[in-house]
């Protein structure tokens, strides 16, 4: 599979604060990669570097080009939604379509019209007259009608209701994604995109702290609600995280078989959020038992490069 994004030692600092700490990253064509991290973790900096919106140190290649020095050519093949609120408010819906059709060689006008026909957006409306959900629909109709090889979505559903968010991801999968495009998405609503992603990447304080494909994720991680009295034997299996809910201990395991855990309590597949908390951690959580340190943070991810 050709590589869409390749980064080696990608580094960016603003003064003394490090936004990206020598990241290695490899994303193959046809993947849907979720980039998850707390606020200020470096998500947007990483996306901006990939989109040629910020300079960087180290090497970064997107679709074979350096995004900072070859941005003008790169943007023919890359589409992005940086924020749902960035469509200019003075613009008419019809003007927005005309403009993108006028400047973008890969824009399919008929497709955009078809997307919009499914909404209640009037062609004569100005963006400022549309609701937040409608603006997002319009932006998405424009972006999904661009035959891009890489689509970057930074919090595309921020502030939108659950119905719209569901519809958004359905549409992304059904109408847009094919195995030649690559999609990179960041969001705080982690669990909603669990079934959308093919790959998962956690970023924290400028480091990539976790990366795996969703096939791996589904087979590797299990969560156990320990029966009272069986905690010592459960902890002997080296959980990577422990937390308390209603007085019961919940342990998270990596690469421990379901059969081993079943006698010890209730076993379930954890959500992305559960694993995220284990890796990125929370100050309010119970401290992780000393014998089960999370794996050393590898500031690299090549899992999506099959």
């Amino acid at each position: 599979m050709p590589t869409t994004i390749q980064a080696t030692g990608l580094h960016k600092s603003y003064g003394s604060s490090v936004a990206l700490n020598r990241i290695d990253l490899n994303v193959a064509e046809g993947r849907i990669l979720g980039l998850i991290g707390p606020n200020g973790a470096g998500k947007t900096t990483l996306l901006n570097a990939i989109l040629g919106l910020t300079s960087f140190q180290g090497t970064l290649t997107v679709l074979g080009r350096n995004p900072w020095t070859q941005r003008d050519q790169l943007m023919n093949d890359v589409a992005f939604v940086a924020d749902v609120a960035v469509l200019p408010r003075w613009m008419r819906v019809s003007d927005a379509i005309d403009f993108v059709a006028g400047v973008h060689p890969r824009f399919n006008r008929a497709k955009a019209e078809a997307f919009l026909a499914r909404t209640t957006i009037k062609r004569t409306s100005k963006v400022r007259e549309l609701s937040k959900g409608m603006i997002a629909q319009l932006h998405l109709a424009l972006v999904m009608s661009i035959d891009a090889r890489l689509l970057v979505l930074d919090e595309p559903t921020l502030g939108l209701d659950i119905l719209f968010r569901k519809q958004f991801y359905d549409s992304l999968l059904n109408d847009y994604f094919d195995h030649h495009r690559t999609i990179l998405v960041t969001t705080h609503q982690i669990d909603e995109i669990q079934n959308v992603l093919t790959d998962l990447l956690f970023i924290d304080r400028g480091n990539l702290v976790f990366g795996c494909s969703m096939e791996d994720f589904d087979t590797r991680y299990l969560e156990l609600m320990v029966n009272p009295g069986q905690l010592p034997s459960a902890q002997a299996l080296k959980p990577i995280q422990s937390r308390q809910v209603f007085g019961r201990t919940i342990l998270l395991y990596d690469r421990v078989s379901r059969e081993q855990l079943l006698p010890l309590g209730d076993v379930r597949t954890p959500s992305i959020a559960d694993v995220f908390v284990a890796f990125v951690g929370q100050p309010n959580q119970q401290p992780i038992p000393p014998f089960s340190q999370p794996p050393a943070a590898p500031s690299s991810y090549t899992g999506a490069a099959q």
Partner: protein
Amino acid sequence: MTPQTEALPTSFPNAADQAAPAARISEARRLFWCIRRELWENRSIYIAPLTVAALILLGFAYSALRIPADSVFLTTTTNVNGVVTRTQHGIDPIQIYTIAAGLIMATTFLVAIFYSLDALYSERRDRSILFWKSLPVSDLTTVLSKASIPLILLPLLTWVITVVIQSLMLLINITVFHARGIDTTALHAGLLLTQNSILLFYHLFAIHALWYAPIWCWFLLVSAWARRTPLLWATLPPIALGVLEIITLHSGHVFALLKYRIHGPAGSDAFTSGTMPMGEMLSPAHFFATPGLWTGLALAAVFLAAAIQLRRYRNPL
């Protein structure tokens, strides 16, 4: 490794068959769309001068109807050498044409100031720069499209509107005068529309576009740089520099330079309309030989290049 099958749709009805080969889009076409975009966003570019023109026309039609039938007009008689031999004092029927041209020019001049200061600032303020940058339009094309508004489009628009409005005024004037039996000699003698329109065109491009180019490009640069109040950032530092010079060095070179740039090269009379006689205008040969023109244009190019670089680096506010 096979991707998760249940998460992916099994067929792609639209993607495969609609993947038309990407047509190439020339930079000229992108520039055209960017300029159109500027006109969508800043409708004051044409609405303001058109409104002023409409008001002038209304006011003019009203006053033309009310002019006393026995009015005496200012006429001058000249000999073959163009020297005035006889002047008859009275109402000057031509003056209103000069005022009309001046008003329209002042309007577009103000529009150009506010447009240039806002052009690269508002897209950062409302974050829409992130949308524009998601499209394959380079910073060079974008900044050039914005610079072309005060440098080309507004002078051209000023010229077209002025010529049309003066022609309409003359038509009204002649019709009313004929209908009311007023002698039209004063009009025909004083108003040479063709010659005036050529002079106006020269004036607009020599002064408003070329001579003022460093001003417009400076404004664009500040609008690409300022985090807030581009108007203050564009005007206060040069003034502060001038004041500093007076206080410390007791000389006034900065202010002299600013005045020279705003007033125009000697003899060009930057703020008057195109109805002045040729002799008062700076001849093109003289104008294009003025060193100040070329240093100004060089400065404008530097400002523009800096604005393009800034747009590349600047994040939304």
